[in-house]
């Protein structure tokens, strides 16, 4: 008993601050990238939905080009995208390393993902509801803002934890290429130095964080959804 107690206090004394820093780095990367991905992905998703055939503003060219860009973004594995974007990251953030360096590739990798999720959520809004809004003389902008986004909000909210958790797992990959965070700690200590205890600690922290994110998401959806 005393042994295991001292093992824990020793462990925390040695790795506690490392793990806390790693957790903070991971959370910053995850949430800043998620926020930016939604900022960019939402308009893109709206454009995709609106320009689709038989939609409100069908535009074959725009729809094809956007769809093509989004598919390219989604077809490149993140670890390759990460390396390929090093020059761009240096240009935008001034560095390709650390938390700041990871944001650019994380946002670029997840924006197309968000765009598709938003497009799908908007497509779920019943066409009858859109028609009703049109029949009351709503303009296209009003339909997007007051009908589509508002009616799709529960569905969009439901997809946010999916995005956040996907980006969370991307940050672990980013860790391998110098971004820091929990993924980096797990690989450096657990893989390179055979320190299984550190790796297990990072896994426990990650499981805990994912549970918290999903639970908060579920609570938010329950509050938002009036259907």
């Amino acid at each position, binding site marked *: 008993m005393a042994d295991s107690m001292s093992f824990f206090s020793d462990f925390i004394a040695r790795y506690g601050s490392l793990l806390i820093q790693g957790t903070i780095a991971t959370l910053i990367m995850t949430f800043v990238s998620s926020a930016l991905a939604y900022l960019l992905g939402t308009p893109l998703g709206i454009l995709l939905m609106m320009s689709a055939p038989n939609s409100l503003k069908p535009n074959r060219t725009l729809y094809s080009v956007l769809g093509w860009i989004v598919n390219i973004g989604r077809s490149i594995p993140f670890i390759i995208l990460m390396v390929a974007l090093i020059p761009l990251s240096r240009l935008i953030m001034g560095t390709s390393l650390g938390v700041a360096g990871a944001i650019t590739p994380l946002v670029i990798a997840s924006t197309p993902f968000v765009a598709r999720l938003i497009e799908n959520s908007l497509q779920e809004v019943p066409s009858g509801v859109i028609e009703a809004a049109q029949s009351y003389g709503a303009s296209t902008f009003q339909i997007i803002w007051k009908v589509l986004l508002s009616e799709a909000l*529960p569905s969009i909210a439901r997809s946010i934890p999916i995005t956040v958790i996907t980006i969370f797992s991307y940050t672990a990959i980013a860790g391998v290429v110098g971004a820091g965070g929990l993924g980096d700690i797990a690989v450096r200590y657990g893989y390179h130095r055979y320190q299984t205890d550190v790796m297990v600690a990072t896994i426990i922290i990650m499981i805990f964080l994912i549970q918290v994110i999903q639970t908060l998401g579920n609570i938010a959806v329950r509050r938002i959804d009036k259907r």
Partner: protein
Amino acid sequence: MIELIDITKTFDAANTSHDALIDVTLTIEDGDIFGIIGISGAGKSTLARCINLLERPSAGTIRIDDVDITNFTGRDLLDLRSSIGMIFQDFSLFSQRTVLQNVMFPLEIRGDSRQHCRARAYELLEVVGLVEKANSYPSQLSGGQQQRVSIARALANDPKIILCDEATSALDTLTTNSILDLLRQINRDLGVTIVVITHSMSVVRKICNKVAVLDQGRVIELGTTEEIFDDPQNAVTSELIGEVIIRG
């Protein structure tokens, strides 16, 4: 007065085209409760949607109060639509808005002040008898109550015309009757012209003063409700009436 003159609507698919409406001509006078009846696919919904240009006719002219609206676009189109109320078979309420906010919607998009929207929405909920449900969400209401909300919403802009697209088809007989009563009351008290799209002759008999029978995109019979019931000229009409007699 709504005048539909030689309205044709053709839907183009990949290789085929389908005529939903062929040379439809009819006049709906102010204060009418005008029934447009036909079996599924007869073109009646398409015809109603031409009146507020949710569908644009391929040929023909639509005049409302002597103004040719056929080619309205932009602001004119939105203003036209906001002056015509519409209710739907599936109610088409906004599920994320409360009853009150649903009724406020047509006023909100017109840019009215929030205060005025609220006051007006409460008035309208009074008309349809649902004030106590103002802060409920549509999912918490019965079908009949939802349709009442959508009627209140349709009345928000003081329309001179309301289009009812199979408004009672999803409701049971008792609820149907109360909705039809409400529509008749609105017609009588507010002088709103009502266009009733239906496949049910009993609905026509209960509230319409005039009726057009549509079959395969053509008007095959047109007259007052008594004329049509007393002396149907067409086999399709007889069949539609027969249904009423069998069902009682």
